[in-house]
């Protein structure tokens, strides 16, 4: 009997058992596509976060209130940034002190965060109000769509000026140009200096739903006694340690050790990569479970059909099929199911990860495709062929009697 004859037999058998064939393929499709999708999400997330941190630059440091584990080089317990945050005691004087006395720094800037309602002519939008220095635009590489960022004299005079994020600008002004108009933030009037270029969304958070005002203005208008944090740029990556030491020295003149922490991007990256490690492992675990479930589904359907197929095998043998011909037929059946199921799963997984790209960054990796496809195909072939192989060795009478 030729291969083509056997292929036709296998196709006829698959067609004769449409529901079973479809269910088996469904198991493979779900297994393959979920692995591809989950790995794409995990990889996309890692890449995104790493890129974000690299954007900050390897020469950045942050001064945060309270005593943070990562700042003290601990973290054996997997410390997270923010653990042990205390109330801030940072003032403009501290900022000036660092600016004047730290020799290895390039720039230092205050950073505060509040939520506020921004209004313009009856329209309103709740957004994050960030208080920053005029350096922000340059050091964070923010591009301006329209107008300009506020300048040093506006900052020093604590002027009520604001730079809008794209979302805020669009919602309040629609087609109108916002530059030079007055908006109200928490009942105070601010002049719009500029609009930032669109940044997009991350993890469902709209990064453009933000406005920037001078940190000096923020303190006054939001009744803040203290600044929330400082952002420092060292002269280079090799002066980070020196800067950290200098800044710590300056701050400890007026603050207790447990009232502030100086953190560099490298240690943040360390923590983030620990978190990402856990996340990736968790996603991998979920993926493995779904693959397992898919595999069990395939197994189940294959085993359930064994009674009927065993009798069929007995009959085929009774009318002249050799064990080898039977095995070839079942192998072809299993390969066809695995192949079509696997390819549909890959297509679905890729489409799915493209589909959720508007909510989450995803990146399809080849190894996840190979892994998912390989495992499903293996399970499909093993559980499709093993019972058939067993049945093909029975004598026809025993196979026909099989219940």
């Amino acid at each position: 009997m030729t291969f083509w004859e056997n292929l036709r037999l296998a196709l006829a058998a698959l067609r004769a058992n449409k529901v079973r064939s479809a269910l088996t393929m469904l198991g493979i499709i779900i297994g393959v596509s979920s692995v591809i999708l989950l790995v794409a999400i995990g990889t996309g997330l890692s890449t995104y976060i790493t890129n974000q941190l690299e954007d900050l630059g390897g020469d950045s440091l942050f001064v945060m209130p309270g005593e943070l584990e990562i700042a003290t080089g601990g973290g054996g317990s997997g410390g997270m940034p923010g653990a042990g945050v205390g109330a801030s005691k940072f003032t403009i004087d501290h900022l000036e002190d660092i600016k004047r006395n730290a020799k290895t720094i390039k720039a230092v800037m205050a950073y505060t965060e509040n939520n506020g309602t921004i209004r313009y002519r009856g329209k309103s939008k709740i957004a994050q109000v960030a208080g920053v220095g005029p350096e922000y635009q340059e050091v964070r590489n923010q591009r301006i769509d329209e107008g300009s960022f506020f300048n040093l004299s506006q900052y020093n005079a604590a002027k009520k000026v604001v730079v809008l994020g794209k979302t805020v600008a669009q919602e309040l002004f629609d087609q109108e140009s916002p530059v030079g108009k007055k908006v109200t933030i928490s009942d105070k009037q601010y002049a719009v200096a500029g609009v930032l270029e669109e940044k997009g969304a991350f993890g469902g958070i709209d990064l453009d739903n933000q406005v920037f005002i001078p940190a000096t203005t923020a303190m006054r208008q939001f009744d803040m006694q203290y600044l929330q944090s400082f952002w420092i740029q060292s002269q280079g990556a090799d002066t980070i340690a020196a800067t950290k030491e200098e800044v710590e020295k300056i701050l400890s003149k007026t603050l207790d050790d447990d009232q502030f922490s100086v953190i560099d991007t490298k240690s943040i990256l360390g923590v983030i990569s620990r978190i990402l490690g856990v996340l990736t492992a968790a996603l991998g675990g979920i993926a493995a479970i779904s693959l397992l479930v898919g595999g069990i589904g395939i197994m189940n359907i294959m085993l359930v059909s064994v009674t009927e197929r065993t009798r069929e095998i007995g009959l085929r043998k009774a009318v002249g099929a050799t064990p080898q011909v039977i095995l070839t037929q079942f192998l072809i059946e299993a390969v066809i199911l695995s192949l079509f199921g696997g390819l549909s799963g890959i297509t679905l997984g890729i489409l799915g990860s493209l589909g959720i790209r508007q909510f989450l960054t995803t990146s399809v990796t080849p190894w996840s495709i190979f892994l998912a496809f390989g495992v499903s195909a293996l399970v499909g072939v093993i559980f499709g062929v093993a019972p058939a192989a067993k049945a093909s060795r029975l004598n026809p009478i025993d196979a026909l009697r099989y219940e």
Partner: protein
Amino acid sequence: MSSIPLLKLENVFKIYKIDDLPVKALDGVDLVIKKGDFLSVMGPSGSGKSTLMHIAGCLDIPTSGKVILEGENVSSLGEKELAKIRSTKIGFVFQSFNLVPRMEAIDNVQLPLIYAGIKTAERERRATETLIALGLKERLHHFPNQLSGGEQQRVALARALVNRPAIILADEPTGNVDSHTAKEIMEILTKLNKEGNTLIIVTHDPEVAKWTKRIVKIKDGKIEN
């Protein structure tokens, strides 16, 4: 020609072991079938009739003894050779029809031809021809569950006939059908015998046995004389 036996069983034993206790399903059977024979095997339930048919039909091998089909000792052949003999020389009809569900009548009938290596067009032609000869012209594309018991048995008979076997073995072919249908089936078998086919059937029913040329009685795995 007819002096050479078509099928000869010599001192055939078939012993099953159940919990280490041997059960002699066949206990030294000698039987000679000549070309053109029409034989019925009768005996009480459990006497070894089916076992005899399976061994005569190369579906199973004897524990000891010889089975000689057209001069060839088949009792010592391997799986592959036995499969080849089944697809070319034997036509087997089971009591419970054993049609493959979800396969049309015509596809069920074609099965032995597929394994005998016959090309598609020839296969379809022969299957159609055989089904029509058995009065199933209107049932070619029906599935087994769309057919009556008698029709299913006729499809099974067509499947046994389609490879033009040297011998047709039918294990209680009328066991699952009513007496009217049984008569129909016996008419067909008698006609096939008249056309030169060699047949062995198993039955309990003396009415059915009356149709055959010769009756062999079996009890406790032994042929009675």
